[in-house]
């Protein structure tokens, strides 16, 4: 399926037509002005639609704009031009506080280096996004315990990050990314710091989540990781170079991105 740009005049109509597209990016650009002559176009006009429940791997050489892309998808950064609809909401021009809110409610992050908070226990780390939503942590405690069990750490609730192995830490991070029941989970090289066996376990867990219906977008250099995805988006020089669907019915179908 080719994701061609729609008629610019009918964005709201298109949102209504295809409500399954939880991410719609249109002519997205990110430019860094480093000096008079030195302008870096980290993203040079990207169009992308990601459906609910899909598992997308973003690949590409270093410097091709993957991280920039993921930062914008994660509402950590704002595009220079173009628009970004997340769940039907234009988030490309939101205020800093509103973006924080979106991150806290609709997006789950998994980082390469786990990024747990050192002074908190496993269960407290899982609770962090709920805290920033202003929730009473006592009412959601049981759910957090369930999540810890889901990732296989039901017996490590009061451990500190330093008392856990890398794989265990990444599992905590996965539980944390799920706690706010996000629209999608963004993962930047989630297995990059892990040995192949624990990496495979973590990947298994992520795949499992996707099978449960979670939308997953991950950046990876690893073909074995990408092999689990339904769709592989290859980037080059700030553009989408290849967009490959690997689902049963479209496996192997190459789809040039630019019309």
């Amino acid at each position, binding site marked *: 399926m080719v994701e061609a740009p729609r008629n610019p005049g009918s964005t709201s109509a298109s949102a209504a037509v295809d409500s399954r597209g939880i991410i719609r990016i249109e002519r997205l650009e990110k430019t860094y002005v480093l000096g008079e002559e030195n302008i870096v176009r980290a993203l040079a006009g990207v169009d992308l639609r990601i459906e609910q429940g899909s598992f997308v791997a973003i690949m590409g050489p270093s410097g091709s704009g993957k991280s920039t892309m993921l930062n914008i998808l994660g509402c950590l950064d704002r595009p220079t031009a173009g628009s970004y609809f997340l769940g039907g909401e234009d988030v490309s021009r939101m205020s800093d506080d509103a973006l*924080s809110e979106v991150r806290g409610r609709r997006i789950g992050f998994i980082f390469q280096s786990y990024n747990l908070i050192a002074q908190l226990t496993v269960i407290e780390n899982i609770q962090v996004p709920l805290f*920033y939503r202003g929730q009473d942590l006592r009412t959601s405690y049981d759910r957090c315990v369930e999540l810890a069990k889901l990732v296989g750490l039901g017996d490590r609730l009061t451990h500190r990050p330093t008392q856990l192995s890398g794989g265990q830490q990444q599992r905590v991070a996965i539980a944390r990314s799920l706690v706010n029941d996000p629209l999608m989970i963004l993962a930047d090289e989630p297995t990059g710091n892990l040995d192949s066996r624990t990496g495979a376990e973590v990947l298994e867990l992520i795949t499992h989540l996707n099978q449960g219906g979670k939308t997953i977008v991950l950046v990876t250099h690893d073909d074995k990781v990408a092999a689990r995805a339904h769709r592989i988006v290859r980037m080059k020089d700030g553009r989408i170079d290849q967009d490959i669907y690997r689902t049963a019915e479209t496996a192997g179908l190459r789809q040039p991105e630019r019309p």
Partner: protein
Amino acid sequence: MIPYQVIITVKLGFKSLKLHKLRSVLTMLGIIFGVCSVIAMLAIGEGASFEAQEAIKRLGSNNILIRSLKPPEQSRQQTSGGGRGGQIKYGLTYDDGARLQATIPGVVRVLPMRIIRENVRFQRSEVPCQIIGTLPFYPEVTGASVVRGRFLAHFDEEHKENVCVITTGLARRLFPFQDPLEHAVRIDAFYYRVVGIVQERSQPEQRSQSGKMEGQPLDNNVYIPLNASRTRFGDVLIRRSAGSFEAEEVQLHQVTVQMRDLAAVETADPQVKTLLSRFHDQNDYEVIVPLQLLRQAEQTKRIFNIVLGSIAAISLLVGGIGIMNIMLATVTERTREIGVRRALGAKKSDVMMQFLVETVVLAVGGGLIGVIVGVTVPLVVSQLTTMKTIVTLWSVLLAFGISGAVGIVFGLYPAKSAAELDPIEALRHE
């Protein structure tokens, strides 16, 4: 933020500080010392000034005290060319008393006193005392209270009765077993019947150090009618010193002028001085105005407090800078954590609050320890020495409040810089 979030944030602050216990304690030291020194020094200052003020109040703030002074050697008036080593005459006279009573506006009473040192005997015991010849209204002017019996009466004065009133301390010493009332004590060659026991306004026995404050009568006092003193002892007193006799003529040793109120004391002060200087051509008296001493003591205390406040302010400032320095380091060190929190939904204000609360916890924690140490130190000091210390509630609250304020003031900048970090940069930070 709802209170619940605040509680969680405070707990988080504690957790973060517990991660580096030694560093946190070292950071708090500045505040601990600052707060501790404020409270301890204020307590010691407060105690000292309390004692000074008590001593002054014992003299009576409505009173003006005039005391005879032996003039310096050169300026002495030789009253008699007599051969006996020389007799000098100085001091206040009965006329001075009468003049003060008659001319100073606002005078309630003028209380004359003759103070003679003499041993007082009862049976086999003998105690060196001050024999004070005075008038019946002595208790009203000095605030002494009659414990038993009565004070001297007008009747005693008129008839130069051989009666006396003794202080409680002397009663205990001279009459350990008997009832002093209706016994007679011997002074010189005469017997005086004890008619009453008085308690001075203070208990100089307990604070003999400060009790000797300017002319404060010691506890071994015997009061006899002024007229009796005059007739029994005469105006000329012989003093033996260094093998030679010295005779001096002193009519009154002290005159206490009781004024109507504090305002009257202020106006009367220069009038008394002027009046006396007209009739004394030598400097043989001194005027003590307890009210002025009190004012001076208060002024001294104010200055003391200002100096102390400055020292405290400087030490708290240094403590605050120390805290700010550590918090800035903490922010740098925890840049990654800040990025993670931002990614997980923290707003700038949440990050700001987190670090501000952490700084305040640090400062107030230091303040709390400082208060505990600061309250303990004066207790120990007053246990080990005779120094009186008073820990006032306001000094504790002030110290505590200031440490909180230091936390906020010096926490603002680090917290702000934490909040302003770019989430992406922060996440990339090693």
